[in-house]
């Protein structure tokens, strides 16, 4: 549609607040962070330009490398385990089985509790000597498996990650909302053709939400994974031996050291990693438009049922 000259004024007026907000609260801070990343600055004394030295230090720092790795794992787990779990629950509950409202509430409930509170709760569960998990293991005769879950190299990161994976409510409700908008005639046709619930989910529901809510949830979950902080901070503070550190926690520690240059350089790396992740995810899901996708999905389903 060609834009009329008379439309430009109102359009600009509508866009301007958003553009101003974006520039003030995102563009300028990012430019500032990039600029500081080339400095040695303790926040008080005059800054000294040190070029790429901060980036070189990050490259050599094993703790930072470990932080990036942990963030990438976290983002992948979020995008490809947590969201699929949420999708399965969304598909099941969208069929409105008995008690679906109850389960929807139960799954969503952790979302209204602060991450700090949840981390504190799980810290108590994982506690080596008074924790519920070890107590349970001892009670069922598996006392040998009891350990300091958050203080052992092999178990600390999985322990931090695993409980969080099951907090799927946020993504579940997004996908449920999307699923309810799918035209019921597709399902009715599929039932006439003899498709099972599973086949309907595979050949109708998933293809139709793939490029909408599923893509949104994977993007959101991956971004959440990349910026993890409070959980790790509360549960392990990055320990033991930096095995659970994340980029944001690393950045926070450098700020505690009043090393704003290095903290900003790690923030820049986080932005770059985030952009790479989001672009890759969108490329993976890129395809034809929704209508074409619907037609393709229906054809595929019919082929499968023949």
């Amino acid at each position, binding site marked *: 549609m060609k834009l009329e000259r008379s439309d430009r004024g109102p359009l600009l007026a509508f866009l301007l607040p958003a553009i101003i907000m974006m520039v003030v609260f995102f563009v300028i801070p990012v430019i500032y962070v990039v600029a500081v990343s080339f400095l040695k600055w303790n926040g*008080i004394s005059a800054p000294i330009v040190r070029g790429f030295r901060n980036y070189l230090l990050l490259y050599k720092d094993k703790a930072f490398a470990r932080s990036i790795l942990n963030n990438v794992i976290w983002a992948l787990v979020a995008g490809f385990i947590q969201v699929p779990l949420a999708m399965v629950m969304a598909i099941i509950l969208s069929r409105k089985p008995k008690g679906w409202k109850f389960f929807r509430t139960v799954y969503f409930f952790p979302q209204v509790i602060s991450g700090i509170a949840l981390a504190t709760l799980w810290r108590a569960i994982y506690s080596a000597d008074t924790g519920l998990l070890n107590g349970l293991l001892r009670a069922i005769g598996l006392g040998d498996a009891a350990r300091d879950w958050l*203080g052992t190299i092999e178990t600390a990161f999985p322990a931090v990650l695993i409980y969080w994976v099951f907090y799927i409510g946020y993504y579940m409700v997004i996908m449920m909302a999307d699923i309810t908008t799918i035209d019921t005639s597709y399902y009715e046709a599929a039932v006439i053709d003899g498709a099972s619930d599973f086949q309907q989910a595979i050949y109708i529901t998933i293809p139709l939400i793939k490029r909408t809510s599923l893509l949104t949830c994977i993007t959101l979950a991956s971004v959440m994974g990349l910026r993890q902080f409070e959980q790790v901070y509360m549960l392990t503070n990055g320990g033991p031996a930096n095995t659970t550190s994340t980029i944001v926690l690393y950045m926070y520690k450098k700020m505690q050291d009043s*090393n704003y240059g290095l903290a900003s350089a790690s923030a820049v790396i986080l932005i770059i990693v985030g952009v790479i992740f989001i672009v890759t995810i969108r490329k993976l899901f890129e395809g034809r438009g929704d209508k074409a996708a619907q037609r393709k999905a229906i054809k595929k389903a019919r082929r499968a049922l023949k």
Partner: protein
Amino acid sequence: MKKTIALLLTLVMVFGLVASMPAYADDEIVINFPSIWVGTDSKAAYMSQLIENFNAENAGAIKVVVEEQTDYQAYRDKIRTTITTGSAPDICILDTTFDIKAYAESGKFMDLTPYLDEGWGNDFTDGAFDAWSVDGKVSILPFESAVFTPIYNAKLLAECGWDHFPATYDEFFQMCKDVKAKGFNAMGQMAGDNAWSSMLWYSLIAEAIGGKDVYADGLDNPAFVEAAKVLKEMYSYTFDGAVSAAASDVNGHFLARDTVVYLNGPWWIANFYKEDNAVDGVLLADDCEVAVNPTYEGGLGEGGLVTTVQGFLAAAKQSDPAKEEAVVKFLKYITDPQHVSELALSSGAMFFVKYTPSPDTSLISQKVTEVANNAAFTVLHVNGAFPTAFSTEFPAALSALVLGQVDEQGFVDQLQTAIELAE
């Protein structure tokens, strides 16, 4: 109906907004004081009373508004950020995790030298400002001091067959074995969170080995590698899960009477006397004794004491002379020897102010003071002696050491690298 509800909601919100706005007299000077001496902090009760009294005495002229911050780390983050962004609070509390020298040099804080020279400085202990003044000017006041000496549960130790606290580290480890054999923990260690307890032990061991000049060569002093070896060994005699433990775990075990030796600053002494921590009506204090840091074979630290500045008071530079006067008046009020004496009595904490201890001072406080008075020399706690990066890296390096990821030299190298990274 909907419109009425919307209108009512709006009115409620506007009323709430207006009601929550503080009201001050036009010519009243308001002093903003974000404080950690609130909540469950041992100094909270008396400080609150002190500020209330000050406000009452200066009603209509000066009002100190306390912004309560119960999370110490969040407080540090907030203060660091506000100072960096040029909006330092009127008064704040700093500790050795801040780069005090850089802050003093920054010119962002009020120069208190003229006021101290008028006689106020005589209230402080001799030499209190020496290490923290810049070009002879004092802008950051050392206020709360701390000495670190072991306190032990003598009753528990007696159950393990010991009628005295070990005088040497060799003897100490013999005690550890006996204590563990009886099913108790010798001491609390923690590599989780900020590894505070273990960092204190590291200071004590390093002092015992390296003596008063332990910091002369930085971390190059072999005492730090040797101290790492001793600290690692201690983890065999602490409670399960010490690698991920926090201060609450260390405190909890000692309060539960399953750990013999406790190490923390004097501000914690008040907890020994709390009824809540009594068992069968017996106060924890009744079972406890104060010890001195054991000596190390071949070490240079006999008679030494580990100390630190636990709290500095700093005031932001003011453009209004009247407000500057008001801030100084308040600082003088809380550092008044009589008030500090009361504060010491109620909290157990120690201060850089010359005060006459109250006759009601607790026995444990008296004994800790006696240890401090008898010290042949003092050395700083590692977190004050090294840059902040040392303390930030300490938990990671310690857990790596305890879990066998690095050896003792690797532990020290990791700390050294962290310091260099920040330089």
